[in-house]
């Protein structure tokens, strides 16, 4: 009944849980609550400075000050980033996972290859693609020139830089989605396919009616991870363009305003709260939709 024994020993697991609990409260929950409080004040990042309650002024500043146009573009960029990354990354991830699940020769090797970018880390990935996309001497530009007689500025182009960042993000995390789908695929019982084969289903039908519904939990997990991940990505932007050339997102703005803007803490706090609310809306909607499809077997 009690794995840790009788008497006081029963409470040992609870006591052990206190440690992460305390850490969580101190390092996560506390700061989160403070952020919300700060967003209504004019607090400055200087010890001993006074703090005044200013109501909704920070929120007003966010959307109505001189650079409010950039704020709307950050939000639009964030949404574009989220939709494209979520759809393409999961689409490609699923496709590759299904291929690798066919027990083809050397599938472990391919798994490693596709998963490698996740392991590399953002700095290395940004460096690799920075070299690939070098407008002066990068191989991609040579390829463009040879194929289409066209050259691009890549990460220094106002119109294309954001697209290339999305591409790099997908390239990097596609293996992650693939791995989760692969785990889901391998848990689908083989006899279902055999039963289907006897009933005369073709490949597409067995995917549509057996695989697809049964890996719904993987879909939920993947959707959730990529929505949250994409909405809070700023590292790849920082490492490739540093927010120049129309590539700012909300998460980047929060970072920029907090650590490299003025000493004001109220405005970036308000920005994080807005960002949190937007993420929350999308996560709730996405989870509701995907959870509906999950089936028991």
């Amino acid at each position, binding site marked *: 009944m009690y794995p*840790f*024994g009788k*008497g*006081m*020993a029963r*409470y*040992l697991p609870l*006591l*052990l849980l*206190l*440690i992460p609990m*305390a*850490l969580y*409260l*101190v*390092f996560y929950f506390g700061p989160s609550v403070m952020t919300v409080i700060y967003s209504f004040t004019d607090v*400055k*990042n*200087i*010890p*001993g*400075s006074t703090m005044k309650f200013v109501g909704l002024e920070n929120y007003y*500043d966010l959307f109505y*000050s*001189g*650079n*409010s*146009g*950039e704020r709307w573009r950050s939000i639009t960029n964030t949404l574009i980033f989220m939709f494209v990354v979520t759809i393409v990354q999961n689409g490609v991830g699923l496709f590759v996972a299904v291929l690798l699940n066919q027990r083809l020769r050397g599938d472990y090797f391919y798994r490693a290859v596709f998963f490698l970018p996740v392991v590399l880390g953002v700095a290395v990935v940004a460096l690799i693609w920075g070299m690939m996309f*070098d*407008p*002066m001497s990068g191989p991609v530009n040579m390829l463009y020139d040879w194929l289409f007689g066209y*050259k691009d*500025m*890549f*990460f*220094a*182009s*106002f119109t294309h830089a954001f697209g290339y960042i999305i591409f790099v993000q997908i390239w990097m995390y596609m293996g992650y989605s693939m791995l989760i789908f692969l785990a889901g695929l391998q848990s689908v019982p083989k006899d279902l396919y055999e039963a289907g084969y006897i009933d005369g289903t073709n490949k597409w039908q067995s995917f549509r009616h057996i695989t697809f519904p049964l890996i719904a939990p993987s879909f939920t997990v993947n959707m959730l991870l990529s929505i949250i991940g994409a909405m809070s990505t700023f590292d790849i932007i920082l490492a490739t363009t*540093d927010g*120049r050339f129309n590539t700012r997102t909300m998460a980047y703005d929060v970072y920029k305003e907090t*650590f*490299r803007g*003025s*000493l004001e803490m109220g405005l970036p706090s308000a920005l994080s709260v807005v960002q949190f609310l937007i993420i929350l809306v999308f996560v709730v909607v996405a989870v509701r939709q995907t959870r509906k499809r999950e089936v028991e077997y």
Partner: protein
Amino acid sequence: MVKKISAIVLAGALTLSLAACGGGGNNAASGNDAEGAKGSSGKKQVIKILHWKQENINKAMEEINAKFEEKYPEYKVEYTTTGPDDEYKQAQRARLTANDVDILADLSGMRLSPQEWTPGAKVPDWEQWINSGLIADLSDQAFIKNWNANDIEKAGTYKGKVYAIPTGKVAMSGLFYNKEIFEEHGLEVPKTWSEFIELNETLKSKGITPIGVAGKDVWPLKLPVFALQAKILGGGDQQKWIEGVWKGETAFNDAEAIEVLEKMKTLQDNYMIEGFMGIDYASAPSIFATGKVAMLADGSWDAPTIATANPDLKFGYFPVPATEDAEKNASFVGKYDVTWYAAEKGPNKEGALKWLEFFSEPENYTTFVKAAGFIPTMDGISTDSDFIDNELTPYLGDFELAYEIMMINRENVGEHLAAEGVHTEYLAPGGVYKTAKELADVQQKEWEAAAPR
């Protein structure tokens, strides 16, 4: 037994959370340790110096620090460097507000302070720090007298008190030029805008790319613009134009401001190296040093880097001729560089003052300024530098501070004016604005939108 374990775990959890809350308390404790050490044992006191990475200067600093430790064995200098620009600003803030630094450098001198004619202007970090009592007052220190009084007044004084030591001046508005290419084609340093355009055309007709610039980092594009702004805005009186912008007498889309943008657009469209928006700052010196371009838009501080990239290269530096008035064009625009502050509440203020005193000795300063390639802010210093003596000094007569130092920005101003720049990267073909006028109109609109309510 189990009881004991749970007690330990509980105690551990409690201390952990206490330790987490006690960040400020920790600092005080370590400060006390240092105090105690001074009195009793021979334990060394640490002086913490924060600076950014710039190899030539870093080396000189290490040399100076070693000499300091030799002279004052009771101190140990902890010299930390971070990446430049934003990364440095972040470290500056974090360390200063945590009282974890004794001496820190600023990227330029103290300017940009809001004036009575700039209601609602952005208050710069250094001013907020001084107002919060984080920066030590150096007015009464004897070593301040070693420095040029005018430079201290211009770049280290706030409300009549000295808070900082600017360690040198740099020219920003010039172009490095390859003397061999110039000689080979019988070209001369241009003195007026039309001579400059003619020179560019000649180079182009001979198949030589005229100008290189590191557009990817965006800020290097501001450098040639500084020359245009200083000589054109307000008829050559930038201060007047800037005040006018605040008072509504001049505007970002008036004729002078548009002329600045238009001239820069002419250069960007016709004479700059193909794909300059993709060149990052670190690789610009080597593009120039290997003879790929005849000129390079860069600050005078990069002369040592260019010389390192190609020791055989003969190069000079001249101010971008902004107007048709040769005399007016013949001076540089620049800024003060590496400005030292001492922290008031740092762990070792006394040591910080000792270090600044040591640094202010002409002999040690000479070591520093030679390595940095700055124009000295102390009188009677010989830098033994051909570059400074022959290329910079002739144009230092009317040395003015650059627009980015003089401009006082509004809080939350839009991206087309942010960071005290005019951002010509937004001009076509790279950016979306087809003409200088279009960009200028957007700038004026953003400026007005950022007006205090």
